[in-house]
């Protein structure tokens, strides 16, 4: 279990307990947090679960696969700390993580 803060683009904050084993994307979708579309449900096929990871947490969220890297390369408003949240598995280690959501997923 990890407490994850999802910060919407407009500043609205959602703090959610996400079960270990789920992904950061699933934590958002299952709680109906606006701003993460996740059209493909976590297959790394759509790049609509883009988030900005708090830079202090980047190392703990793991490295990007080449597929993720490649999908992100063509998403909009990508930054150094951009990730596809369906590719970040939640562990106890991620307790306290904050991710910020982009204005749009297109």
């Amino acid at each position, binding site marked *: 279990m990890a407490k994850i803060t999802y910060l919407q683009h407009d500043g609205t904050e959602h703090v959610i307990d996400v*079960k270990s*084993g*789920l992904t950061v994307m*699933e934590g958002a*979708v*299952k*709680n*109906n947090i*606006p701003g993460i*579309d996740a*059209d*493909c*449900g*976590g*297959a*790394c*096929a*759509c*790049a609509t679960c883009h988030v900005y990871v708090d830079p202090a947490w980047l190392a703990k969220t793991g490295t990007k696969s080449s*597929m993720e890297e*490649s*999908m992100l*390369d*063509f*998403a909009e408003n990508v930054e150094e700390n951009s990730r596809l949240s369906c590719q970040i598995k939640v562990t106890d280690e991620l307790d306290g993580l904050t991710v910020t959501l982009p204005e749009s997923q*297109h």
Partner: protein
Amino acid sequence: MSNASPHVLIVGAGHAGGTAAALLRQYGHEGPITMIGDEPIAPYQRPPLSKAWLKGEADADSLALRPLEFYGQNNIDFRPNVSVTSLNRGAKAAALSDGSTIGYDVLILATGARAIALPIEGADLAGILFLRTAADAEALKAQVGPGKKLAVVGGGYIGLEVAASGRALGADVIVLERESRILARVACEPLSDFFTDYHQKHGVVFDLGASVSGFEGKDGHVTGVKLADGRTIACDSVVVGVGAHPNDELAKDAGLECARGVVVDLDARSVTDPDVFAIGDVAHRPMPIYDRMFRMESVPNALEQAKQAASAITGRARPTGECPWQWSDQFDIKLQIAGYAFDVDEILLRGDPGSAKFAIFHLKGDQVQSVEAINSPPEFMMGKSLILNRKPINKAKLADPSVSMKEVAA
């Protein structure tokens, strides 16, 4: 819709219906929402059923779109195990299979599609399965394992995904396809050839031009598939994946215009009744970038139409910029398809199919209509935006994989 907080009745608790319910709340809808589903469980993802779930890599929790508690917490009256048997549009009421009646102000039909069954001898034998629901997948999972013989009838995407998952689970897999190539209805020849080779390398056997005439069984369980040429293919189980039929009977019986699907406008609203919407696999809908109407069976379509209907009901602006897309996972191949190959006059190959990393662009003049990208996210992502913005492309650059997709689209 004079009522400011109308009661929205959603018929169907699949990907489309479940998403519409959640989006209505997300968009601030305050009126009652009732969602009727004929399956025992809350809305879930169907795509993993033939892929990760079948291989045991996903559990029921991850399959669920949202946890069951979500619906109660959000004041969504979700009623499983019950279906709507008829509609009375005049009285704005629906009759349910449990004998009750429920009224509505706004109706969303999200009844989906059902797998087409083969009307042939032995089709009711045990071990002949479809793959549409979680229950179907559960039954299939119990049948497939090391040394088991699995026959797949139909070489479409579902059939191929099942074949790949079956091989991963150690089963012997044969795919029986009526046409002379797999994916005949949905993909171009180079893509069919690629998948044929790739599956064969992973031990899948194909029998093409095979006309299935019946099933043989013993003690009520299937033991073989009979072909029109007299052969019988021995098997322990069968998956039939020969397409789906929209569940539009309810709408038809209620006098709503249908054309293999409920005919709707750009808001997913029925062209017959402004208080009725139809979304997902059951809708026959306009797609402006191709200037035509058709029915799609894909998750992105279900989600987009859920957004359209929820937006229209809550008075939000209609979502824009839609490029239809879909994906398929087979072995370690990720296929991403953007658009549909309508009115195509040229097929352009980018990359080498031998490397399992290439893309096929379908062109109309110098515009991209569709792209099939194999392990090629840049081609898919850029292809999607090229389809949407209708920008003419330089074919020589597009055909040259050493020119980046960003440069092609520049």
